[in-house]
């Protein structure tokens, strides 16, 4: 395979083959495409570009640099793990649809990170939404259908904002290059930032994420967690690095979801909140904008795809095997799913940033950069959010699914392909944490950072172990809130509850005013009709049949009057 073929093309052809094949051949293609694509990627040199001149613009659908290559490797790895995890799907689980949608979705993500101009980015941006929504709809429930529609509407809107911003920018600067943009005070830059912010799950724009991700199929949500938000993080790193506003946005993102994660019952929704929290660290790093901070942000994105993928895979395995995913319905599964439980704990340790696990070597770059740049006050909530991660993703997910109160549910380990995918993800999580130089060598800037010194290992372990102690004490004293069947209202309340009611109320008011205006108008019209009827009605003087002669007479009178008037 020639190295110059854009990765998205490889994946789109792969998706076509997946759609046309069945059985073992399809399984082979699902695994081979990311492997061969990944090998081709290794041969790509930064600086390779593909340009198309059309309609007065120079489109660059394919451009390679260190940042895009890093995300390219990541998305190939994520596709391989995701496809392996979904390999067992049968036709009654819409296997063909799910496999094809996943390949197209992954290809769109690759297209976006190798896009060199904003119009190409827009195309892949919309394709991300159009292809991924099928992974939600494939659940075939009423809830999934509705959540998928809301997801699609919001993401298409994000694309429209991106296109509007890109065209305004082209008009103002004459360039559609997908490069550094920054907030220069132009409306175009704001539109692009908001478009990126919707996909990244900025506060108040995040409702789609916690709404749709828990409704995806067990295998589909693993893909969803890998691509959309990471493309947004990539886009922010490319265009808005060093935009100080993002530091504050990021800190809010790290903190607010952890409160929701404590009280949320659906474990995949807990992970969705956790995802916003982790992206918050990345957005903060991008906002700080130094080499260390941006390196930390993209390294953490890399690590997050793997540990969050592993956590979504282990909760997906629980859902697949038991049919249940709520904390209040689960517990005690370690007895029949010990391997899954162990792998889930590896994911939990990785996201919690225990030494030797991945987040320890990535998130700490962002924390250090925050201190180096003097963000002393913001460092405190970031540290608080780091402890919060431990509570909801590190302890709550494995505890309520596999331990806790025994639900009495007995099952067995998930299919081998699922176990293998989880095991590989776990190996990579520990590999990154133990040998960070491999990941560090792939980062966009030269790395002058080493996470393993006595102070860092000691302080992080202290933070986490005393966090565990706190959870234990809170459970023992009965302060820890039980898992309850409930809906916790959040940003999506504005369009799922308030919006329809406002529309209904406004619609009602409009209908009443409209009704009043209509009846008043009708009254006026009918009284006018009454007046007209007196003249023109059956017995009205104007409705009588007059002989032609009298008409001639009247014409003569009219002519006479005209003559008098005009002379």
């Amino acid at each position, binding site marked *: 395979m020639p190295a110059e073929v854009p990765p998205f093309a490889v994946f789109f052809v792969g998706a076509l083959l997946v759609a046309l094949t069945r059985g073992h051949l399809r399984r082979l293609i699902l695994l081979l495409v990311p492997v061969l694509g990944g090998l081709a990627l290794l041969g790509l040199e930064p600086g390779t570009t593909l340009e198309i001149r059309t309609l007065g613009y120079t489109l660059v659908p394919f451009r390679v640099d260190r940042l895009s290559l890093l995300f390219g490797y990541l998305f190939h790895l994520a596709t391989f793990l995701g496809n392996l995890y979904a390999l067992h799907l049968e036709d009654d689980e819409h296997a063909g649809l799910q496999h094809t949608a996943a390949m197209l979705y992954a290809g769109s993500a690759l297209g976006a990170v190798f896009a060199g101009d904003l119009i190409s980015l827009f195309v892949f941006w919309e394709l991300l939404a159009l292809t991924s929504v099928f992974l939600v709809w494939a659940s075939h429930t009423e809830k999934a259908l509705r959540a998928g529609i809301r997801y699609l509407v919001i993401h298409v809107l994000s694309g429209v904002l991106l296109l509007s911003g890109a065209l305004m920018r082209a008009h103002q600067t004459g360039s559609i290059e997908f490069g550094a943009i920054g907030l220069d005070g132009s409306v175009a830059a704001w539109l692009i930032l908001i478009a990126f912010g919707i996909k990244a799950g900025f506060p108040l724009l995040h409702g789609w994420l916690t709404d749709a991700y828990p409704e995806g199929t067990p295998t589909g949500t693993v893909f969803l967690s890998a691509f959309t938000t990471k493309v947004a993080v990539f886009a922010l790193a490319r265009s808005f690095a060093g935009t100080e506003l993002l530091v504050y946005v990021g800190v809010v993102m790290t903190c607010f979801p952890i409160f929701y994660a404590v009280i949320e019952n659906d474990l995949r929704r807990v992970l969705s909140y956790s995802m916003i929290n982790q992206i918050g660290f990345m957005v903060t790093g991008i906002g700080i904008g130094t080499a260390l901070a941006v390196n930390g942000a993209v390294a953490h994105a890399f690590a997050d795809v793997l540990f969050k993928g592993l956590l979504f895979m282990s909760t997906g395995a629980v859902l697949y095997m038991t049919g249940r995913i709520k904390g209040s319905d689960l517990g005690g599964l370690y007895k029949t799913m010990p391997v899954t439980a162990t792998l889930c704990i590896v994911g939990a340790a990785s996201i919690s940033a225990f030494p030797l696990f991945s987040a320890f070597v990535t998130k700490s770059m962002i924390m250090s950069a925050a201190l180096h740049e003097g963000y002393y006050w913001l460092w405190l909530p970031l540290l608080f959010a780091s*402890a919060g991660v431990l509570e909801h993703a590190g302890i709550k997910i494995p505890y309520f699914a596999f331990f806790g109160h025994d639900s009495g549910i007995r099952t067995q380990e998930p299919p081998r392909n699922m176990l293998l995918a989880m095991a590989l993800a776990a190996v990579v999580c520990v590999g990154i944490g133990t040998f960070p130089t491999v990941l560090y060598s792939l980062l966009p800037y030269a790395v002058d950072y080493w996470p393993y010194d006595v102070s860092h290992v000691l302080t992080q372990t202290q933070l986490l172990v005393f966090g565990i102690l706190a959870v234990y004490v809170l459970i023992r004293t009965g302060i820890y809130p039980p898992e309850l069947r409930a809906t916790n209202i959040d940003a999506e309340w504005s369009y799922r509850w308030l919006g329809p009611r406002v529309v209904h109320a406004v619609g009602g008011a409009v209908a009443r005013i409209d009704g009043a205006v209509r009846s008043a108008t009708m009254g006026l019209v009918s009284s006018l009709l009454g007046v007209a009827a007196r003249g023109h009605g059956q017995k009205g003087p104007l409705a009588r049949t007059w002989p032609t002669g009298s008409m001639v007479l009247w014409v003569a009178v009219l002519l006479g009057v005209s003559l008098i008037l005009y002379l």
Partner: protein
Amino acid sequence: MSHETGHPPLLRGGDPEAPPLSHRARMKDSDEPPGMWDKTENTRRLFRVLYAACAILVILDLVVHRHAEHPWEHVVEFYPLYGFLGIVILVIAAKGLRRLAMRPEDYYDAG
């Protein structure tokens, strides 16, 4: 950490509102032997390890000279205190959030 070990029950099991079990799962038999974490001695051992780890980490903070960049990092036992209090405040605040944000499970469907 379940009923049998004397810990407070956290979860309501066997809830009639729960969705149907998958055909890949079943409910346990009544004569099943207890699992590893149903045995009090195992959970006790686990928590003894936790207490020991806490003790060692507190002592290490006094012995090891750790470098500090943030002014608060100079405070003795800063990280253990921050980790413990952070989680306590988080959980108590989240209980407060529940009073504000919690609605019936079918909240959006009912309207």
